[in-house]
């Protein structure tokens, strides 16, 4: 089984409202620390624009591991929501069967600061899994959650960000 990082970046760029930076070089993958050459130090930077504004994120190089016998794969990653007052993070964990189909995903959202409870989704194992994670995160967000320049709009994009990443991860996995 294989995870294609370039396919991931391309698919992410195709999500409505999404725009990957530097996509003409290495499909948008850049070193987070310009002095590093380590793959795990690579990120894709992108913006997501909706009626409330334009917000900045970065997804880190995914970690993969094959299940015993190579009959499935686990894929995880961290996503940063770049906020002026401190980043929020989404951690995504997903699994793929031997045919390369996503069979589960779960996410945890960690908000900067301690004023808002983090969101931990259950494992989504059926139906449209990225959409299921979207719904689970969305149901946990409250209007009072967090501030981006004294607004709450930024954090309300997090369900879309998780969904877009999961869709891109699904496109990137092949048997």
């Amino acid at each position, binding site marked *: 089984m294989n995870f294609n990082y370039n396919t991931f970046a391309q698919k992410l760029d195709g999500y409505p409202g999404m725009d990957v930076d530097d996509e003409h070089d290495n499909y948008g993958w850049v070193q*987070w*620390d310009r002095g590093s050459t*380590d*793959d*795990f*130090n690579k990120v894709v930077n992108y913006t997501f624009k909706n009626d409330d504004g334009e917000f900045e994120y970065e997804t*880190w*190089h995914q*970690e993969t*591991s*094959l*299940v*015993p*016998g*190579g*009959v*499935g794969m*686990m894929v*995880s990653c*961290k996503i*940063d929501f770049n906020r002026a007052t401190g*980043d929020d*993070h989404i*951690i995504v*964990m997903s*699994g793929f*069967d*031997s*045919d390369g189909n996503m*069979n*589960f995903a*779960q996410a*945890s959202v*960690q*908000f*900067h*600061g*301690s004023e808002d*409870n*983090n969101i*931990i989704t*259950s*494992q989504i*194992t059926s139906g449209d899994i990225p959409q299921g994670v979207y719904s689970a995160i969305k149901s946990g967000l409250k209007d009072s959650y967090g501030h981006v320049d004294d607004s709450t709009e930024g954090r309300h994009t997090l369900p879309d960000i998780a969904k877009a990443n999961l869709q891109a991860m699904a496109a990137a996995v092949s*048997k």
Partner: protein
Amino acid sequence: MAATFDLDHFISLFPGASVHKDGTAIEYTVEDSTYRIYNPDESNDGTSLTLDVKLDHVRGGATDDHVGLSLVFDSSAVLQSVAYSWEAGNDGYTIPRTLVVAIDTGIEVVGGLGAVETGGASVVAAQAAVVIFDTCAFVYNQIASHMVKWTDNGGRFYFLPVVGHCINRLGSSVSA
């Protein structure tokens, strides 16, 4: 006869890992955080194999986060149970040792044994894969449930997938 564990293969599954602690541990950096995996302690009673593993989330200038894992495999190399404990550095928050009996997780994220047999795996290998998959997902969610009010720079949170991948890689390094 107990299953056997291949340490070299296990280490090879951590991309970009380097050897530390006089050869008793490896470290690998994911994103902006470094994680240390100690060589597992092996024991067997003639039929089952137990692997005890310590993991650190390395935090410069602060006490590391610690996880302890204990995995038991049967003679067919199928995971039987996982026990874990979690100790967060500095603030002292701990998750006491918790035992997960693999066959009781009830998640069946892979959709049952038939789904993985299409990969051409033997029934036993397929069963081993399903159990590992389900257990990793279950442990991830169980630990995550403790994190509702935790805050940090993300490295502590990513420790969760590190634990999941470690369980998966241990399972991939055990054979009958």
